[in-house]
């Protein structure tokens, strides 16, 4: 049976924990709003880009640039794992890593070479335990201020296209957490290179009219594709950032509630112990008086 002092200490420690989780929840809620706005604001561009690419690739056929058609081989896969820089966000990072591990397992079972590029500290920490030797590169996002990820996205995109052209890998897949709504984030695997327009992208039916291209179809595709890849990376980063905050908010809300329940039950225990002590003291006084 813990003493009264022990109980009091525990209650006050749980209370300060509750204060911290409550504060973290409110911070996450504020950040979520901004991150969500950024993610929604970036959507029209990504969607238009996808439909432009769908229009172009439909007419480009098989003779397109490598970024679109691939190297013709399917041996080396690069898995880009996009996670958060910080923990304490419920299962957010774990779910992404779980999907990545599953994917890596599948590819290795098929006898393919797998390379991993991690974005975000948490993914690297979790993956390096099992697949430390496969991680070829890591990108740190912790220095990014104010949620402006466009530069990081562009530099990551450049790195990927550069390595692809150098023949470092044949297929690049991005694994990230898609932001569905505040309560659910869906770990998703998306193929980046060779680029493919999403199947649901709307293509415009031109009837018999022919597109006029300036300067030329190939030149447009060549400038468009790297940008398309950058855009996909950027929107993935933004979605993941929004998801991280949403997940942290939910996790911290739960933690706050749990701390509240714990405080209640500890207070009850404390009050009982106090009452028991009073009763004991009374009995001692009364039996002392009777003995006289």
């Amino acid at each position, binding site marked *: 049976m813990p003493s009264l002092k022990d109980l009091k200490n525990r209650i006050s420690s749980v209370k300060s924990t509750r204060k911290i989780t409550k504060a973290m929840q409110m911070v996450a809620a504020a950040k979520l709003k901004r991150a969500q706005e950024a993610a929604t604001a970036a959507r*029209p561009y990504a969607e*238009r880009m996808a439909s*432009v690419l769908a229009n172009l690739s439909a007419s480009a056929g098989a003779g397109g640039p490598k970024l679109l058609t691939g190297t013709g081989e399917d041996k080396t896969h690069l898995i880009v794992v996009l996670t958060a820089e910080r923990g304490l966000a419920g299962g957010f990072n774990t779910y992404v890593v779980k999907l990545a591990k599953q994917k890596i397992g599948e590819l290795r079972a098929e006898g393919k070479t797998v390379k991993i590029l991690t974005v975000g500290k948490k993914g690297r920490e979790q993956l390096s335990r099992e697949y430390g030797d496969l991680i070829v590169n890591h990108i740190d996002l912790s220095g990014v201020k104010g949620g402006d990820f466009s530069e990081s996205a562009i530099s990551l995109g450049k790195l990927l296209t550069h390595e692809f052209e150098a023949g470092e890998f044949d297929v690049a897949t991005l694994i990230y957490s898609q932001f569905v709504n505040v309560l659910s984030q869906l770990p998703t695997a998306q193929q980046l290179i060779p680029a493919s327009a999403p199947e649901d992208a709307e293509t*415009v039916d031109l009837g018999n009219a022919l597109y*006029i*291209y*300036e*300067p030329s179809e190939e030149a447009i595709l060549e400038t*468009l594709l790297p940008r398309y890849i950058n855009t996909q990376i950027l929107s993935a980063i933004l979605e993941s950032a929004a998801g991280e905050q949403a997940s942290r908010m939910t996790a911290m809300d739960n933690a706050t509630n749990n701390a509240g329940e714990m405080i209640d039950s500890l207070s009850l225990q404390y009050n009982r112990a106090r009452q028991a002590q009073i009763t004991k003291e009374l009995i001692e006084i009364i039996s002392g008086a009777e003995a006289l």
Partner: protein
Amino acid sequence: MANKLHFSLVSPARELFSGEVDHVIAPGSEGEFGVLANHAPFMTTLKNGVVRVLEGDTVKMRIFVRGGFADVTAEGLTILAEEARMLDKLKVEDVQKELDETLLKIQSLDKGDTAKLALQEHYDYLESLKAAMVH
């Protein structure tokens, strides 16, 4: 109205404009071009420059874009800009300040640094933006 052109301008950060207009003049990489309603399907890359939106004969809006694409379909004109700013809401002093800051950053970097090239590009872009504002 039948003879209106649906025009939208989006940048990675947000959608700047979407609506019905009469006439849009954009800086294509092969030369400036104008788009009216019922234009033939057309796609081009853009260079840095000013996109002008006309209502009748008067210029209603000027937007400075930094590279990108223009896509004309039966549904209208879509401009995908790398970066876009509303010219009418900018102040020359602010742009000048950004220019000076970028120049300082360029000078602080070593030669051959990849970041320097990117900054130089940004500097050129700001210069042309400033030039567009003065006119």
